[in-house]
């Protein structure tokens, strides 16, 4: 019965990634290799991030929100952006269109993030007898994270790979990318600084991820037009 619950939560956490891969043209163009490479880059980035966090951050005894520490954490969070940059520009991909490349990278990125951050807690926690909503919420969070990762990858591909984009849109692209990249810090502030509960935070994440997805979609479409 509790294995059943684990199964449910796993579907919610990892299912959308698989669905995304099989439903979109990604599967037709066989971009799995790109996703795997992006996932490996994510692992490397996570390691560098851990080292940085361990080096520069003090361990706070209480759960209070310390602005200076959080700023530092946000800066370290930008290592993610660097990793994504590496994944998008430096990796030699097979000849796939930019359109599919960012999706594949974002998908691999989000999947690696889910596996790394959510699989172990799920395996330990959701199989236990005690029922909590936490693991279902965590699955929803993984969904929001997938959308955010793909949005960030889309914005990144706009920034770094597309040369001829409308000049007026450039500041908007950078602003959106900044917002998406600082999302972890924003949620951490909501959780610690404002004392939001987990369901509220997840709701906020879902909402913002959808908004950001729509914005970046529109931006991408707007950049596509002149070139086509």
């Amino acid at each position, binding site marked *: 019965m509790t294995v059943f619950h684990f199964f*449910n939560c796993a579907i919610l956490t990892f299912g959308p990634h698989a669905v995304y891969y099989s439903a979109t043209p990604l599967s037709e163009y066989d971009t799995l290799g790109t996703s795997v490479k992006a996932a490996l880059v994510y692992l490397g980035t996570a390691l560098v991030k851990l080292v940085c966090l361990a080096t520069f951050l003090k361990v706070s005894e209480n759960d209070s929100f310390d602005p200076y520490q959080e700023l530092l954490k946000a800066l370290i969070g930008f290592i993610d952006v660097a990793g994504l940059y590496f994944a998008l520009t430096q990796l030699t991909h097979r000849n796939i269109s930019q359109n599919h490349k960012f999706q594949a990278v974002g998908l691999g990125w989000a999947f690696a993030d889910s596996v790394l951050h959510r699989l172990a807690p799920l395996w330990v*926690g959701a199989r236990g007898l*005690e029922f909590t909503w936490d693991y279902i919420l965590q699955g929803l969070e993984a969904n929001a994270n997938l959308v955010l990762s793909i949005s960030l990858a889309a914005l990144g591909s706009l920034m770094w790979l597309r040369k001829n984009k409308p000049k007026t849109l450039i500041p908007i692209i950078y602003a959106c990318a900044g917002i998406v990249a600082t999302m972890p810090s924003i949620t951490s502030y909501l959780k610690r600084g404002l004392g939001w509960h987990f369901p509220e935070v997840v709701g906020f994440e879902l909402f913002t991820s959808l908004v950001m997805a729509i914005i970046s979609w529109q931006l991408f479409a707007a950049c596509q037009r002149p070139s086509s």
Partner: protein
Amino acid sequence: MAIPTNESVYSAIALVFILVTCVELCDAVAVVDVYRLIQYDIAGVPFGSRLASLNHHAGSSLYTPGADLSRTVVMIPVAEVNITFIREYIEQKQPLGGLMLLLPRIFSPENKDVKYGGDEDPGKEQMKNILVELERLLLYANIPYPVYFAFEDDSINAVLADVKRNDVSGQPATATTGGYKFVVSAPEPRKLASPTITNIQGWLPGSKADGDSNQLPTIAIVASYDTFGAAPALSVGSDSNGSGVVVLLEIARLFSLLYSNPRTRGRYNLLFGLTSGGPYNYNGTQKWLRSFDQRLRESIDYAICLNTVGSLDKDLWIHVSKPPENAYIKQIFEGFSNVAEELGLKVGLKHKKINISNPRVAWEHEQFSRLRVTAATLSGLSVAPELLESTGGLFDNRHFVNEAAVVRTVKLVAESLARHIYGHQGKNFKIFADDSSYAVNPSYIASWLDLLSRTPRVAPFLPKNDPIIMALKKELAEHTVEVSLQNEVLDGMFTFYDSTRGRLNIYQVASVTFDLLLLLVLGSYLIILFSFLVITTRGLDDLISLFRRPHSRKVKST
């Protein structure tokens, strides 16, 4: 080469996350200390709770219609127990997953701060009566499911309220609402191999007159210190027989003061005995007496056994097995009743003949009488208790023992002993007056009562060098000489089983129905997501063709 390093990094990081979540997990589960009903056999006939491990949903009453009680742990606060109903339930051997009885907080041995209302509190008497009846019922029943006692506290009360609400709304724990699951993981109870009982004795030697070659006569003061109750881990027996032990220790202290001065040293040896095995026909006392040599046994002038003397509202009784006309008995009784009169007490004499062929030994002095040693038991009980009765049950804790009563008994026994030893019978002569240097020390009595009321002392579960046995030995050694321990094996009739306490994990669980519904919702979510993605990226026609394709393939193959 890059892949293995990445994997090792991953496993290291995963390990960290596992550790983090483990810490969080433990917070989510309520954990409560629980105490199991005793499991024992008398001559091979099983009694008590025969199981220890528990893993069932929680329910709040035995009446719940439609609920599968054989897979339910029913938890009931003792105050709300309906004895006749439970008795019927147990006697008809109806199925039950488990029984969890919630005791009020004040019955916890660790609890000292909360005071029960005054002595006249009617609730107190009522609670005592319920517990006595419940205990008698549980002790003599063969219950094929686990029975546990727990103490009410905030977390368990919240759970109880929740379970009750669910039961009232007609949705027992297995329906869509989920509910609580009680888990006590315990191994199968095992038989205790040859339980030991430990007797402690100490001497205060008297002074011989010069040139007197005869052995000095001896007076023995005896109390049994072990207990027996429905929950062995809660059986502290403050009154039965903690009070007797405290009186014995205080008398030893007082007489050691007298005997340390050569001028006040009496012409009697005093023998102090703390015996074990009291609930089992005074088995320890029997073994202890058997170990004496003939000369010693004959030198005992008389023995005073102390039993259940810590209650103010009861009169004291002297129980004897020789007829009251007997000269020695008369002497003892008169000594006691004279002092009692001066203290404003009433002491009665009860005579109960011994039936040698009956294995039941109701009073400790009967073991002495069987060996033709004059002995009497001083007790607050007016009639002989049955086997395993009045031996330190659930209610018998610090709140039901009165220090003043213990002080009173000490005065009574010490004074009458002193008059006998120094030959002042019938005279109004106070050695242990309150303002003298031989005054009874109430704080000493209170501290020993507190210690004994915190320490369960069921003999089979006390190892040979248990701290309480060592503490009693050390205390006796402070006041007396030649203190020794005697380890014996408890005689055959009783068999005990271990696992007397456990930890109850309370989980809030979701039901299968909930998980099925969740699966349904998630499945439709993924299908909608799939359709949405296909439509937005490839168009509606693609989606439709996706569903058509297997169909057309089927047509081709056939």
